[in-house]
């Protein structure tokens, strides 16, 4: 039920792992490693599509993490590293879509929703308060009505 597709492609990539030749250079520098993890969490592993580069065990992810370490070592900025990935794999690799006209709705949507929700709430409450000002059933009457209703239905 779960994870069929990623496994399939992971299996394809891993088929070569048994004969892996080169040890991925594991970072010795903690700061570099931290930055590498932070960057690779923003990126999608294209092999096992819904994992991040940080989480994936696919060989391509190992290679790309190595590439990121190299670029950090070369003094590239985070933005330059992201651009490097986008130039090769497209916007699709970014888990945080860039803000541009096609993503305005995505980034603005939640705020619109929140604003809309608050406005609707205020309108609703004000109307209720106004209605309440008008003469309606008293509490006592309510209670009696509810009691009557409760008798008629179980």
């Amino acid at each position: 039920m779960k994870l069929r597709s990623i496994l399939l492609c992971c299996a394809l990539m891993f088929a070569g792992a048994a004969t892996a030749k080169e040890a991925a250079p594991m970072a010795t520098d903690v700061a570099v490693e931290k930055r590498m993890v932070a960057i690779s969490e923003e990126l999608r592993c294209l092999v096992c599509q819904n994992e991040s580069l940080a989480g994936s065990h696919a060989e391509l992810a190992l290679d790309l993490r190595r590439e990121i370490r190299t670029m950090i070592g070369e003094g590239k900025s985070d933005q330059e590293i992201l651009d490097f990935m986008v130039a090769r794999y497209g916007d699709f690799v970014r888990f945080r879509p860039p803000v541009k006209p096609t993503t305005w709705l995505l980034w603005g949507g939640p705020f619109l929703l929140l604003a809309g929700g608050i406005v609707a709430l205020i309108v609703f409450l004000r109307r209720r308060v106004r209605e309440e000002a008008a003469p309606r059933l008293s509490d006592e009457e309510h209670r009696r009505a509810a009691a009557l209703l409760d008798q008629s239905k179980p």
Partner: protein
Amino acid sequence: MKQRFLIPLAVFFVLVIFLAIGLTLNPRDLPSPLKDKPAPAFTLPQLAAADKTFSPTDLKGKVWLLNVWASWCVSCRQEHPLLVSFSKQNDLPIIGLNYKDQGADAKNWLARFGDPYLLSAVDADGRVGINYGVYGVPETYVIDKAGTIRMKHTGPITPESLKTQILPLVAELSK
């Protein structure tokens, strides 16, 4: 006043339309950002003769295919017969990019299943693959006379994709 009770229905209706369109699309079908960009340069040793190298500029002025393959790749074997028979019938140069493979395994594999390639360049550490945005071997690039990538096909080539997509493009570019 009462129209507001129709809002949920309207929102849902729009959603269903999008979902219906979504059904006709394939989410795994990723366009390559390298399309219509110059093919990234590289110089790599050849598989058959390690002392010789290959670089895309060697084929300037020709239309050619770059096919990324590896002996460990299961789907490569699936498309391989098609490439072999295609190479026998056409003189379109096909360059293999032997991606993250062992030299001996790769040579055995070609000996066993046939060699459709003009030559194979050895990308042992996968760096060239990264520059080409390779993520699912096999992948095939169509590169024009000016050295520009005109198309990328991810996954095994099928007789259908060869006939309907790759060949017409090659014919047009060769004019």
